[in-house]
């Protein structure tokens, strides 16, 4: 194992100090590694070595004290520490292919190929602009997005003899437009009309605004648009760059919904978050406040830069707005006349062609046409047939339907006839309606039944029972309470007629009340289980109003607690079995020890079952009889574990005998404890009789 040598033993430093001559050797050479020779060594050259000459104390960043496996840091076998470089300041600089991972790092060749494929852009169709070098005129990349495929309109027009770059219409006779403008022969050739450019309405001009919308008077924009429209097709996607080139117009303050904090004009008295109407208060008494003066520091309109409005534009706008529409009236409020369409209209109208005299149309009107021509309406007027007659004429079967007059009674029909003044109304027959549409008495209850809300039968019965014993809602309105009760009875199955509805009550009110009843029954259903044992129903709160006596009464009378029967018996003087009860308790062992008594068995014996009475029981936890019997059992049979097998049978045979316990006869009619007579007087005498009595 090669150790890192201490600095002193490295040949460079040691040989510097005492380099032996190659040729002369005098005496014995001192061993090289004698360590400290007294020469001055600066601190950074001093090293600490262990007893075997290995270097210790490598320093914090070169592995620390005694670093590596057996101090191998820095040696050939060991781990070579590098200079520590803090990556805090420059994280990615020193790591050319470091931690920053890209998606490509995780791709295989196939994925990479696919990714490269997606980079290539192709057009799905053949586009007109591509390859047409000459066509790149003014329309920018417009041709690029026009497909070469002809539209159907173009196809039709072409089949009708139209060519590209021609106008549509009759051919025009005119001179050929040559460079050398030979204006001599006027009626030269027939030319297709000039191609008229399609009027493209720029998107901004398509006013998709509501009625009454006042745009922000951006005159400049209109001018700009007009300028732009003059040149080439309207390319909205190119407008941005064009606009950017144009001198930025000063922005007029816009108004829009809400005013953000960024729209702050800088004046302090304007709360951007103010809600509600602005109310100005007079802060001075006596005189009206003057109109708010512009601030000292900001002149009026200082925030807005001066906007140049050319006189021409304003006059034009004025002309447009004051112009009348075609019918001579000013445009409707909120509408403006379109300035552009006016140009189209201003095209000269050509007068209708004159029909040459003597011209006769080949499609002349035939003379056979009857002179007394009648329109259909006139013919219909003349006809006396009504719908029924026509239907009979046409052989239609009469419709099965009946007239309203078949159903209304005669009196009603007469009244109608009187009112309308028409005597020829059909006779009122007063028939009853068809089977499925009987509206009256029999149908109504059925509908009303559906309105009666459902309620669980048990629940209804419970609510009824609760009402019978305790509290019931609607104590202040007895009629409502009776209605409530009848509803409950209905739902509990005690009744089966519809809940009554008073005269003036509408069905909706009635239904509402019934639903309220159903809800009340659910709410005030009797509590069950644990909850029932925790709550008690309060006494009725509405006391009969009887004048002065009321003041003395408390608002709430204390509810008498159910009295303990033992207490009531005690109050009546019926002491004895009624007033006595007993429960077991467990005296601690120490207490029993202090009383010098045996601790009681775990389960105290049943109290007072035997005739021996209280005293005997207190003296002996286990009666003598029982003790003897147990002892006898053990002596004769041995304990259960020691008993041999054959004795089990005997024990079992003996078991029924021992289990023949007499059942106590309980006389329900008679309570001996109560009916017992007092002990006779002489018993008392015997107990309390004093020795000195006979003196």
């Amino acid at each position, binding site marked *: 194992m090669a150790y890192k040598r201490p600095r002193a033993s490295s040949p460079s430093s040691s040989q510097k100090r005492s380099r032996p001559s190659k040729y002369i050797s005098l005496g014995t050479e001192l061993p090289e590694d004698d360590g400290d020779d007294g020469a001055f060594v600066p601190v950074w050259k001093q090293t600490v070595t262990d007893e075997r000459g290995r270097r210790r104390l490598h320093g914090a960043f070169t592995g620390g004290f005694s670093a590596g496996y057996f101090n191998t840091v820095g040696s050939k076998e060991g781990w070579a520490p590098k200079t520590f470089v803090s990556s805090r300041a420059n994280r990615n600089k020193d790591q050319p292919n470091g931690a920053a991972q890209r998606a490509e790092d995780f791709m295989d060749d196939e994925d990479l190929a696919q990714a490269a494929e997606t980079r290539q852009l192709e057009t799905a169709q053949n586009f007109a602009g591509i390859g047409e070098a000459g066509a790149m005129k003014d329309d920018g990349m417009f041709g690029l997005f026009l497909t070469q495929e002809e539209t159907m309109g173009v196809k039709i027009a072409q089949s009708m003899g139209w060519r590209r770059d021609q106008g549509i219409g009759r051919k025009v006779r005119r001179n050929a437009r040559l460079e050398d403008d030979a204006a001599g022969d006027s009626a030269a050739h027939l030319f297709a009309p000039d191609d008229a450019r399609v009027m493209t309405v720029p998107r901004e001009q398509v006013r998709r605004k509501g009625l009454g919308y006042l745009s922000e008077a951006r005159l400049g924009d209109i001018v700009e648009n007009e300028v732009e429209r003059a040149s080439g097709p309207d390319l909205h996607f190119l407008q941005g760059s064009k606009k950017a080139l144009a001198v930025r117009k000063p922005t007029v303050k816009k108004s829009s919904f809400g005013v953000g904090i960024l729209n702050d004009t800088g004046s302090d008295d304007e709360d951007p978050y103010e809600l509600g109407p602005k109310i100005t208060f007079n802060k001075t008494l006596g005189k009206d406040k003057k109109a708010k003066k512009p601030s000292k520091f900001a002149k009026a309109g200082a925030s807005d830069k001066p906007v140049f409005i050319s006189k021409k534009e304003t006059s034009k706008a004025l002309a447009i707005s004051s112009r009348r529409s075609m019918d001579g009236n000013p445009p409707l409020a909120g509408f403006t006349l379109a300035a552009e369409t006016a140009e189209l209209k201003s095209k000269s109208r050509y007068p209708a062609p004159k029909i040459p005299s003597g011209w006769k149309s080949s499609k002349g009107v035939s003379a056979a046409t009857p002179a007394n021509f009648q329109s259909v309406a006139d013919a219909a007027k003349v006809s006396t047939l009504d719908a029924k007659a026509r239907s009979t004429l046409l052989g239609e079967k009469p419709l099965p339907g009946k007239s309203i007059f078949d159903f209304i009674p005669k009196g009603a029909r007469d009244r109608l006839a009187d009112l309308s003044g028409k005597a020829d109304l059909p006779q009122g027959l007063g028939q009853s309606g068809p089977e499925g549409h009987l509206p009256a008495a029999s149908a109504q209850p059925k509908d009303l039944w559906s309105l009666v809300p459902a309620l669980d039968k048990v629940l209804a019965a419970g609510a009824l029972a609760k009402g019978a014993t305790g509290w019931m809602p609607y104590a202040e309105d007895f009629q409502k309470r009776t209605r409530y009760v009848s509803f409950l009875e209905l739902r509990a199955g005690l009744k089966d007629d519809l809940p009554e509805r008073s005269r003036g009550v509408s069905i909706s009110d009635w239904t509402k009340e019934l639903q309220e009843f159903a809800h009340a029954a659910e709410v005030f259903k009797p509590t069950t289980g644990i909850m029932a044992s925790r709550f008690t129903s309060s006494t009725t709160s509405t006391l009969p109003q009887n004048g002065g006596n009321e003041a003395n009464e408390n608002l709430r009378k204390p509810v008498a607690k159910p009295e303990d029967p033992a207490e009531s018996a005690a109050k009546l003087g019926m002491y004895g079995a009624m007033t006595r009860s007993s429960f077991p308790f467990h005296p601690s062992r120490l207490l029993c020890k202090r009383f010098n008594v045996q601790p009681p068995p775990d389960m105290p014996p049943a109290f007072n079952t035997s005739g021996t009475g209280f005293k005997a029981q207190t003296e002996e936890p286990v009666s003598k009889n029982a003790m003897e019997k147990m002892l006898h059992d053990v002596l004769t049979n041995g304990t259960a574990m020691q008993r041999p097998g054959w004795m089990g049978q005997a024990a079992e045979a003996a078991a029924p005998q021992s289990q023949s316990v007499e059942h106590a006869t309980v006389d329900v009619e008679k309570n001996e404890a109560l009916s017992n007579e007092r002990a006779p007087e002489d018993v008392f005498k015997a107990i309390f009789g004093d*020795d*000195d009595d006979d003196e």
Partner: protein
Amino acid sequence: MPAFPTIPIAKLSGHNGIVHAVAYSSGSQSYILTGSSDRTIRLYNPKKAPPSSVAPAASNVYPPGLVNKYSAHGYEVLSIHVNADNDRFVSTGGDKTVFLWDVQTAQTIRRYSGHAGRVNRGVFGGDGDSIIATGSFDGTVKIWDVKSKSHKPIMTLDDAKDSITDVSVQDGEIISASVDGRVRSYDIRTGTCHVDVIGYPCTSLDVTKKGTELLVSSLDSTIRLMDRANGDMLKAYTDEAFLNKDLRVRSTLGLNDSVVLSGSDNGMIFVWDIMGGECLHRFKHSEMREVQGKGTTAGQTGKKDVVSAVAFCTARREWASAGGDGSVVVWGVER
């Protein structure tokens, strides 16, 4: 019927407040211990305190008959009970503590604290007076061990729904009377507690020598003799003049369980025949005389007129009554 002691033979004076507790010493019962709301317990020798004696004006002078003073309680002393060996007694008081005293040195041997309210009664019990049973306003009966140095009660009986007013230990049974109108007999041998409903707040208990009957005072101006075996009422003792509706007054059996003796709210002391139930004697405590007839009750309902404690001497024909005026009167047959 022996003659009932009706003559005041001694007057023990010196207390500055209502005397809540009177107890005869054990054995020959020649000494009387009194506990008062002036926070002291005094040991008197009634033989040296003639009925004409008056309390001395100076507080450092011992009144006639006073043997010793025991003061450690911070509040009124409510009960005193002397053990059979006559060398120790237990006192309880309004400071929620129970003190076990050494009679000779007048020092407390043990101080038991654990009750949450004033301790109404503390009695010795068990084999060789090895425990102290105390009943407190907090509704519990706590049983303390005298023999060990434990500061915790051996047992706490917290069945009562209201203040415990009196506790009695009788031959393996601990009997407690409570304001909730019930007398509870805890039988330690059987581990059973018998609850007898009296119906009115019970204030005092006394057990006959045989242990089969129980004398219970309750706040309906009635004293009842109950049969402990089955809870029957054997006799009820009332009188027209007998008034006990508000205050805790003690009642006791006397003359070998032949008479019932009780103080009252209005300064009278009543003696009933235990068998017949008729009122034999009426005494006026403050006037130290027997009252013939029905007695006077007019205008005598002040707090000072209460006869809060009575004690019967079992060795002689003698009894003592302690009143709200701070004096204890000892009644005997003759001087």
